[in-house]
């Protein structure tokens, strides 16, 4: 395909997606997720339209009810007249590269609703609870005019906090019976919630889990506004309306206090520095003498002839000397 044909094709895709054509949105997500030929041009065409969607991250342990809660949040947001995009991430096998993406099972009711777009993604070797392409998929849905984009992480443990580097607001879901309050005062994931949810509120111990979370938040929290702890039963939708109200309220505060803008600037920093790192790595991975030099340095490190720092410094110098990266 010639360059102008390709540009034409990408332009067509972006125009379709921005106009809300579902198939174009879907194709454009694949393009950016796979970093396929033309994705950078596509990005330049639609990025100016992003920044309007409210990006809400939903994270919590495996089996905690994230997909069911996302399903019910989407229903409620639809009722309120919003268009809703959902990105649901599930793990990719480190052995075969395959994945079973099953979050959609809980979201079947929305399949026939044109106001809801759901996309499943495999982590594809990326750690942190998301995939490499998740942020790009969020941008596509944002450009396509979805009012809310709900991003559901893989089931997480204690330190998969990447969701906070892409969401405007994070809902941290807990369930009763996963551990005592020592788990709750540990650092890591407990620090990234803007809204806390105890799901499966009908289960024994739910009140206690809530009390422990409240106690931990009383001891301190990241932002000036103390996050609330809400109870839900996603299965029956109990508490979901209150959760949506709290998300909107907290979101309004994040925006009015200027914290949202700071967060987004921080996110941009992370994205740009990651791309920079990617470029450097690509440059290194290239064949020829630089690739060989890097290979030799790795061997030197493994034989303890150089420290990892020294090797990194030499590679860095080499790239600087060569100029263009």
């Amino acid at each position, binding site marked *: 395909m010639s360059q102008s044909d390709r540009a034409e094709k990408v332009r067509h895709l972006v125009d379709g997606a921005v106009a809300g054509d579902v198939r174009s949105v879907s194709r454009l997500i694949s393009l950016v997720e796979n970093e396929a030929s033309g994705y950078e041009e596509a990005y330049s065409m639609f990025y100016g339209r992003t920044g309007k969607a409210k990006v809400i991250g939903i994270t919590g342990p495996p089996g905690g009810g994230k997909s069911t809660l996302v399903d019910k949040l989407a229903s409620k947001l639809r009722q309120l007249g919003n268009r809703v995009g959902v990105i649901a991430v599930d793990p990719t096998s480190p052995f075969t590269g*395959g994945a079973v993406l099953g979050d959609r099972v809980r979201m079947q009711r929305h399949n026939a609703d044109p106001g809801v777009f759901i996309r499943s993604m495999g982590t594809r070797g990326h750690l942190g609870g998301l995939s490499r392409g998740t942020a790009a998929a969020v941008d596509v849905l944002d450009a396509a005019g979805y009012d809310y984009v709900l991003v559901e992480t893989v089931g997480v443990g204690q330190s998969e906090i990447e969701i906070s580097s892409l969401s405007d607001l994070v809902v941290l879901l807990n369930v009763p019976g996963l551990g005592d309050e020592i788990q709750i005062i540990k650092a890591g994931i407990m620090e990234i919630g803007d809204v806390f949810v105890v799901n499966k509120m009908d289960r024994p111990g739910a009140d206690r889990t809530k009390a422990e979370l409240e106690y931990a938040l009383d001891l301190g929290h990241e932002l000036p506004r103390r996050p609330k702890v809400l109870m839900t039963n996603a299965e029956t939708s109990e508490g979901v309306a209150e959760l949506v109200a709290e998300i909107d309220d907290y979101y309004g505060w994040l925006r009015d206090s200027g914290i949202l803008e700071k967060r987004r600037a921080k996110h941009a920093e992370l994205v740009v520095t990651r791309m920079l790192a990617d470029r450097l790595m690509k440059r290194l991975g290239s064949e020829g003498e630089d690739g060989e030099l890097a290979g030799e340095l790795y061997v030197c490190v493994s034989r303890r002839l150089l420290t990892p720092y020294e090797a990194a410094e030499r590679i860095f110098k080499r790239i600087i000397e060569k100029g263009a990266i």
Partner: protein
Amino acid sequence: MDRKIRVLVAKPGLDGHDRGAKVVARALRDAGMEVIYTGLRQTPEQIVSAAIQEDVDCVALSILSGAHNHLFPKVVDLLKEKGADDVLVVGGGVIPDEDIPGLVAKGVAAVFTPGTPTTKTAEYIRENIKRK
């Protein structure tokens, strides 16, 4: 990077038995594909809508209720209607041999009946997806 093959595994119709569909989903996963599993009792409209949102290369349908002659071609037709006729459609389940030629004539690329090794299904999909 190799593009990942994405497959939607879906259960149209009313039978509530998805062991076979799950076995196939797992086998395709082990063959390195991204499998989107949508669960039971889906209408053709829901399946096609999900297939488009997920931008899959293949829709794999499983049915045990006997409604395959109606539901399989319906999925093929709806995909065509939505401009997604480059999606490969395959079927599986309890399908009498005499029904298979009719399904193939209506655009179902292949039908895998009980006893088909799952590796054969994976291989077929890999070799026959229309988008490269």
